C-alpha cells in the first residue's frame, strides 16, 4: 500500500513506523519456527548457537540428532547397511511412533471426511431443519476444551457399555481405551468440525440448480453426486481431510488419556521427551514436522486456488 501524495511529513513518519512494526510482528510469528531448524544441526547438546556455529565452522554442525532419532530404541545401533535399516524400521521408537501416527491419522481422517462431507451436504440444503442448532453441536468438539473432551472419553472408552447397563441391558463389551479403534474414534470426533467448516464453505458457492439439471437429464441421485457434485466440492473435501489429518497428527491430550503403550504417537513421544529430559533430538523431530507442515500448507493453498478457479469465484 502506497502513501497518498497528500500525506503530511508526520504521516510519512507514521507510515514507515507502521511498516517497521508489521515487520517485527512477522518476525515474532515466523522466527520461532525458523530458528529451530539450524539449532537441530547443533553438534553440541545445547539449545543455543555455539560460537563455532556462529562462525560457520563445519565442525559446529552435525546430523547426530537426526541419527539419534533412528537409533533410539534400536537393538543394535552399531550395525550397518541393510541390518541397520531393518532394525530401525521395526524397533526404533520414533519410527514406531511415526507409523502409529500415520495409521491413526489416516483412519480417523477417512471416518471424519466421509461422515463430515455427508453431513455438510445435508446442512447446506435450504430445507434442513434445526440447521443452526445441529451445526453448533457438530462444531462443538473444536470449542470444548480438549482436557474436558479427553476426560469424558477416558471414562466412556474404559467401559463403553456402562450406559447400556443403566437402562437394563448387560452386554459384555471390551474396552475401547488402549486400542487403536478408540484413538481413531476420538481423533475422528476432533477432526469432524474442520471437515464440516471447510466443506460447507465450499458448498456456499455451489449452484443447487446443477443437481436439478442433472436429474432432469435423467441421472439418478448417485450419478448426480459422483459426476456433478463431488468434482465441484472435491477441493473443499480434500482440504477438510487435510485439516482432520493434521488435527489427529498433532493431537496429544486425548492420546495421553485413552491410548495404551502400543499407541505411542509422535506428539506423545515428543510430550514425554519434553517433560522428562529435553534433548536436541526433539528439535530434529520439530524440524521434520515443520517441513511436513510446509508441504501441507502448499497443498491446501493450491487446492484453494483451484477451487476458486473451478467455481469461478475470483479472489477478492
Amino acid at each position, binding site marked *: 500500500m502506497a502513501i497518498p501524495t497528500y500525506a503530511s511529513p508526520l504521516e510519512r513518519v507514521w507510515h514507515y513506523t*507502521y*511498516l517497521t512494526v*508489521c515487520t517485527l*510482528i*512477522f518476525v515474532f*510469528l*515466523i522466527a*520461532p*519456527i525458523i*530458528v*529451530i531448524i539450524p539449532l537441530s544441526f547443533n553438534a553440541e547438546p545445547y*539449545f*543455543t*548457537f555455539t560460537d563455532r556455529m556462529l562462525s560457520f565452522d563445519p565442525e559446529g554442525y552435525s546430523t547426530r540428532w537426526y541419527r539419534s532419532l533412528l537409533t533410539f530404541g534400536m537393538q543394535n545401533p552399531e550395525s550397518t547397511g541393510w541390518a541397520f535399516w531393518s532394525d530401525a524400521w521395526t524397533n526404533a521408537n520414533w519410527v514406531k511412533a511415526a507409523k502409529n501416527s500415520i495409521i491413526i491419522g489416516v483412519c480417523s481422517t477417512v471416518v471424519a471426511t466421509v461422515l463430515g462431507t*455427508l*453431513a455438510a451436504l*445435508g446442512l447446506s*440444503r435450504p*430445507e*434442513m*431443519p434445526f440447521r*443452526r442448532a*445441529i451445526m453448533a453441536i*457438530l462444531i*462443538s*468438539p473444536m*470449542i*470444548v*476444551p*480438549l*482436557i*474436558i473432551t479427553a*476426560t*469424558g472419553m*477416558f*471414562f*466412556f*472408552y474404559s467401559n463403553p457399555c456402562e*450406559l447400556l447397563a443403566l437402562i437394563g441391558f448387560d452386554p459384555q463389551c471390551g474396552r475401547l481405551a488402549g486400542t487403536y479403534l478408540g484413538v481413531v474414534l476420538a481423533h475422528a*470426533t476432533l477432526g*469432524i468440525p*474442520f471437515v464440516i*467448516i471447510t466443506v460447507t*464453505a465450499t458448498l456456499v458457492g455451489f449452484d443447487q440448480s446443477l443437481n436439478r439439471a442433472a436429474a432432469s437429464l435423467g441421472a439418478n441421485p448417485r450419478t448426480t453426486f459422483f459426476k456433478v457434485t463431488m468434482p465441484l466440492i472435491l477441493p473443499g473435501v480434500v*482440504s477438510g481431510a487435510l*485439516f482432520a489429518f493434521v488435527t489427529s*497428527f*498433532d493431537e*496429544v491430550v486425548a492420546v495421553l*488419556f485413552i491410548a495404551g503403550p502400543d499407541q505411542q504417537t509422535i506428539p506423545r513421544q515428543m510430550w514425554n521427551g*519434553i*517433560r522428562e529430559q529435553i534433548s536436541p533430538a526433539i*528439535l530434529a523431530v*520439530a524440524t521434520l*514436522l515443520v517441513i511436513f507442515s*510446509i508441504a501441507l*500448507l502448499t497443498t*491446501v*493453498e493450491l487446492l484453494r486456488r483451484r477451487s476458486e478457479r473451478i467455481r469461478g469465484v475470483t479472489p*477478492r
Partner: protein
Amino acid sequence: MADAALDPHAAIATTASGVGSGTLTTADGMPLARALAHSQRRARRRAFLLVLPLLAFILITFVVPIGQMLARSFHNDGFSANMPQVSAWFASTEHGTAPDDAAWTALAQDLVASADARSIGVVGTRINYDMPGTRSLFTATGRQVRRGLEPPYQEALLEINEAWGDPRLWSVMRSASTPVTANFYLAAVDRTRDEDGNIQQVEEQQRIYLTLFWRTFWLSAVITGLTFILGFPIAHLLATLPMRKSNLLMILVLLPFWTSLLVRTTSWMVLLQQQGVINDILVWMGIIGGDARLQMIYNRTGTIIAMTHILLPFMILPLYSVMRTINPAYVRAARSLGATSWTAFRRVYFPQTLPGLGAGAMLVFILAVGYYITPALVGGSSGQLISNMIAQHMTGTLNWSMAAALAALLLGSVLILYWLYDRLVGVDNLKLG
C-alpha cells in the same frame, strides 16, 4: 378485475375456481397445497438423513461421554454403596442427631464388611475428599477390625482411634451417605460445610480454585488483548496490499497455523530459557549482564508469550476477511471532507472492522480458557490454568469427582461464550485459512 390483472396469483385462482372444484390439484388428483407440503417434508427428511450418521456419531463419542463424566461431579457412591447400614441409619435420623448405639453398631458392621471386601480404601477416599486427612483413619481401622471387633462398638472404635468421635466426621459421613452431593461444586468454589452443615469459606491457605479460575480468565483476557494489538496491524497490512503480495505474506501467518502445537511450544522453550537464544542475544548486545539472565519461561510470562504466538492466527484470519471487504473509498471520502488520518481511522475505518474483531477476540478467548498443553509445558507453577488442575485431579490425586466439578464449571463458561459467539457471529461463519 383490474386488481386480478395486476396480481398473477389472483388470476390463477380465479381461473381455477372457474373450473369448478375450487382447489388446485396435481395430475394424480392430490390438492396442490398438500402435495407441496408432502414434498417439502420429504426434502427435509432427506437432508436430515444425510446429517443423521454424523449427529449420532458425535452424540455417542462426544456428547454422551462428557455428560457421563459430568454426572460424576454430583454423583459419588464410594461411601453409600460400601457402607449400607450406616447410610440407612443416616437416612432414618434427623440432621444433627448424635450417634446412638444403633449408629455405632451399623458403623462397626459396615467397617468390618467393607474391610473384608477390601473396599475400605474407596470409602476412606470418599470421606477424605470432604475432610482431608481421614483416609488413613479408615484404612488403619480397617486393618484392625479385620482381626475382629467386639461390642460395645462405640468404646471399641474409640479405642482404636479417638477421631471416630469427632462430630465433624459424622457430619461428613452423613453428607456422603447419599450418592448425590453438591460438595464437589462447593469445593470447586473454595467452600466447605462445617459440622452443622453450614456453607463457609475454606481456610485462607487452601483457597486455590477461585484464584485459579480468576487467573485463567485474566490471562485469557490478556492474551486476547495481545493478539488484538499484534494482529490488527498485520491484518490491516494484508488487507490493503495488492493480492499477490498479501498472498505471499499470508504464508507467514498460515505457516505457524499449520505447524504442530508441540513444535511451537518447544521452540519457545528453546528461545526463552535462561541459556537460550533470546537471553544470549540480550547479553551479547549488553542490555543485561551475563549473570542477570531473564527468567522468561516456566512462569506466567512464558505462558503468555507462547499462547499469544499460538493463538495469533485465530485473530488475524477473521480480522483479515472482514477488512478485505471494507471499501477504501470511505476513508478517502472522510479525508476529503477534512478529517485527519487519525479521525478517519477512528470514526470511519475502525467501526467497520468490529465484526471481525468480535469474531477473532471471542474465538481466541474461548480457545485460551481451555488451554492445557502449553501452560503445562512452559507455565511453571504460576502459569498453570484451570485445565491443568483438572488434569492434576484426573491423573495425580485421582479425585475424579473434583475434576468433573471443575470441568463442569469450565465447560459452563465456555458454552456461554460459544452461545454468545453463535448469536453474534454465527458458527456457520467460522472460517479456516
